[in-house]
């Protein structure tokens, strides 16, 4: 199989974000940026499929700024074969990204697209489902297990009540959940090797796709701050406060 893995450059998950005082967004100046954690899981899964002989080629694509090459290089160092950056400085929206990814899929013709279930910046959880819709492909979202079986792909999905397994015809789109795997760290030799792997840079207009957002962001604000309360010394004091002060027991 040929695999396509879209990865997004996002603020690192350890960074405590700050809302800009003019309410235009969050402050991204000088903060650590990383590959979206779910996308790292997607890359890892793709590399494992290649190591197992289920997949032969892995193409990684990111839509984002020049700097998103760092995230593509990281994926190449983890074991992907080839990278593609579609360069835009504007913030992207799932429908626009999905439309662009569709054009890329039509060119690359992968058998399976593996991507994150959610970008931890916009927390949208949409792009994979939208891509599947636009392509007319099946979708296996929130995957905690992926297995190729009799020409189809079995995806175990994390759902509210537990787990659901579905079988998808190929080609298909799968989105990753946290427990699919634990991504590897790239070794130094692999990081060196990744520098020589091919990485194409293109423009959205090369695909004739308009990334104009459909949602207008009116403002971004700080959520109401929760104040820390008091420390209690003993369990008895805790129970007393919950009963008599908070009235929740």
């Amino acid at each position: 199989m040929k695999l396509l893995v879209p990865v997004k450059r996002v603020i690192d998950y350890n960074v405590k974000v700050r809302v800009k005082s003019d309410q235009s967004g969050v402050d991204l100046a000088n903060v650590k940026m990383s590959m979206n954690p779910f996308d790292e899981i997607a890359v890892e899964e793709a590399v494992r499929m290649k190591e197992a002989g289920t997949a032969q080629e892995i193409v990684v694509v990111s839509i984002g700024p020049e700097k998103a090459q760092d995230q593509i290089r990281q994926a190449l160092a983890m074991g992907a074969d080839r990278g593609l950056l579609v360069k835009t400085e504007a913030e992207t929206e799932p429908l626009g990204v999905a439309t662009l990814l569709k054009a890329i899929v039509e060119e690359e013709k992968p058998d399976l697209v593996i991507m994150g279930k959610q970008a931890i910046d916009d927390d949208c959880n949409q792009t994979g489902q939208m891509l599947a819709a636009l392509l007319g492909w099946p979708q296996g979202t929130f995957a905690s297990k992926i297995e190729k079986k009799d020409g189809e792909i079995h995806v175990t999905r994390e759902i509210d009540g537990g787990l659901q397994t579905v079988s998808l015809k190929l080609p298909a789109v799968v989105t990753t959940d946290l427990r699919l795997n634990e991504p590897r760290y790239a070794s130094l030799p692999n990081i060196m090797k990744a520098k020589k792997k091919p990485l194409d840079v293109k423009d959205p207009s090369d695909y004739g796709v308009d990334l104009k957002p459909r949602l207008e962001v009116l403002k971004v604000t700080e959520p109401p701050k929760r104040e820390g309360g008091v420390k209690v010394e003993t369990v008895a004091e805790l129970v007393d406060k919950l009963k008599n002060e908070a009235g929740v027991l």
Partner: protein
Amino acid sequence: MAILVVADHHNEALSDATHKTVTAAQQIGGDIDILVAGKDCRPVAEAAAKIAGVRKVLYADDARYEHRLAEPLAALIVSLADDYDAILKAATTTGKNVMPRAAALLDVMQVSDIIAVEAPDTFVRPIYAGNALQTVKSTDKKKVVTVRATAFKAAEENGSASIEDVQPADDPGLSSFVKEELTKSERPELTAAKIVISGGRALGSYENFEKLIFPIADKLGAAVGASRAAVDAGYVPNDYQVGQTGKVVAPELYIAVGISGAIQHLAGMKDSKVIVAINKDEEAPIFQVADYGLVADLFKALPELNEALG
């Protein structure tokens, strides 16, 4: 305006998340219809017909909707979309799975996980694990929206809407159901419970959840939750996870035991009314959001708490 609310259910009972989504729909304003798609689930449609302010219930009963697969369900929603200006569903795992697919087929950019309605086209939603709130205006003609149920009150049940059968839409036949392994529990559902007690990595094992957390949960009539670390380690099933990428809860009382309080965990519980933290590290970030903090070893504190609750 006409609004379609897609019901949440597992063929047996209507989930409370639907009532809350109806409230969000009422805030947008307009005629509200509810779609109940499933298999042999007329009681669910009847329950939906009782929700206050609902004009009618559209009932699609067919095997292809039994397991809530995204492809046929999205096709059904799209087949009904012409009649509606807005389509809403709770941001449950089914909502998250199906709605973006329907949105893309309608060429609409979905507004995910809203916590407030500012105007019929303007919504507030958390981003960055709830560390910022974004107010967005949708420029699409039709609105496709998923709703964070904990942010809205449940609509009342004094209505008596009519139930209308609708034809199933063509099934694209792209996927099929293999199996479901659902967690069985006598305890209340996490997102609906008034009290939640959650355990973290410090619990160390399923046995410790069983020995220390479950008895307290049962005394309090509470649901049990967990941090990602506890789920990853296999102490409890995946659907116990509270947080940015798990469930969002907002009970009257949330008790966090042996949980450090990473932002991804806080994202799922910081709207609880009263938060209690039990942690042996007095510097643990969870104490910054806790109304009552107890610095203690959980292996000592939990048996005491169990005792104190009588």
